[in-house]
């Protein structure tokens, strides 16, 4: 059984991010099951020593860590890696790594901008290594493809497109609250494409043009500022 869950949001977009939407949905389901919860944004806290300390203290306090982040360049964003380096060093310094005291559990939620969830596999493998090397019990890793389609919307407001993701997190919350790992069914549902890849790519390509238009940059989207 778990009593305290901490959501660490690894997106620099913070509370407007898809990472926060996914992690926040899971945390709300855990709170409904009587678990005390807290949410922290990694990037702004790492900017100061005080914030970094707060991050590590909160991570110590929780018996379930929920690490939610976007995929950057096939792996975790730099601030998430920095947090893992610091937390690992802290656990090693006070002997918890050596004692193999798996008193904490970790669940990772990754979303990527490509439609296929399998792009997230390497990042999940890295979170698994972090857990193993830090003597934290890994409770599962969920991967969502096509995160751009959620675009930071609350999952409850994301309509039918996010139905499988919501169902996945409902199942995950049940299992985690009972002290179990995330079941395979939840992993499968989260990885289910939000829409066909061709549709995601087509809409996405138009979306880039549309966003650039806002900055009057739509005619130079393909420019090469540093030569050929």
């Amino acid at each position, binding site marked *: 059984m778990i009593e305290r869950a901490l959501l660490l949001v690894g*997106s*620099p*977009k913070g509370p407007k*991010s898809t990472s926060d939407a996914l992690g926040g949905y899971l945390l709300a389901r855990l709170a409904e099951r009587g678990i005390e919860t807290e949410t922290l944004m990694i*990037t702004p806290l790492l900017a100061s020593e005080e914030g970094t300390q707060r991050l590590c203290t909160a991570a110590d306090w929780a018996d379930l860590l929920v690490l939610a982040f*976007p995929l*950057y*360049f*096939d*792996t*975790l*964003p*730099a*601030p998430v*890696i*920095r947090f*893992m*380096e610091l937390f*690992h060093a802290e656990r090693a310094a006070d002997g918890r790594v050596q004692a193999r005291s798996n008193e904490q559990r970790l669940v990772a939620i990754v979303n990527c901008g*490509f*439609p*296929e969830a*399998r*792009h997230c*596999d*390497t990042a999940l*493998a*890295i*979170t698994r*290594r*972090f857990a193993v*090397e830090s003597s934290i019990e890994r409770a599962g890793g969920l991967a969502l493809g096509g995160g751009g389609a959620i675009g930071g919307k609350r999952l409850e407001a994301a309509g039918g497109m996010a139905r499988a993701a919501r169902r996945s997190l409902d199942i995950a919350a049940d299992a985690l609250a009972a002290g179990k790992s995330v079941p395979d069914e939840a992993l499968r549902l989260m990885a289910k494409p939000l829409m066909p*890849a061709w549709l*995601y*790519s087509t809409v*996405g*390509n138009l979306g*880039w043009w549309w*966003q*650039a238009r*806002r*900055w009057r*940059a739509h005619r*130079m*989207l*393909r*420019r*090469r*500022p*540093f*030569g*050929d």
Partner: protein
Amino acid sequence: MRALILNGAAEGDAAVEFAGEVLSGELSGMGWDTEMVRLRELQLAPCAGDFWCWVRTPGMCFVDANARTLTEKVVRARLLVLLTRMTFGGYSSELKRGLDHLIGVMLPHFTKIGGEVRHEKRYERYPSLAALGVLRHLDQESERIFRTLVERNAINLHSPAHAVRFAYDLEGQDVLRECVHGLVAKAEVER
């Protein structure tokens, strides 16, 4: 030909620094015009994830001048070498802070490569990618993850070739030199 080493050593990591010195010296000796950027010495904020390098000032970071300079160096290099302390099978946070700023070298537009959706090329030519991971001791699982990561980065970066090698703490200069030659030879042979 230009070689750019992105050195992701943390403050006080003598083994990675030593590997960087050997790497730099060997590449220069092989005729490469070599530059090493120590990322921890670079004032570089974490990528804000705003995609402005795609939609506001295409190809360049809107916010950070050092990120623009770094991107230009990568685009102009023929060989990009990533040097890092292996961190849970991946890159150190110092190295990753630099890499997170490189998405502008690709276009935002989607295309299919090897059956997966990826980003289109912005430039005609991209550097070959070589990565040297420094570990305390043999760790097959971490090495497997690292190889996969570099391979996927090479696809993302449209690199014509890529190579991965590992070095272990306390290894001497001869072993490292051999390691560097193997790394560069593989990256060149596959060009």
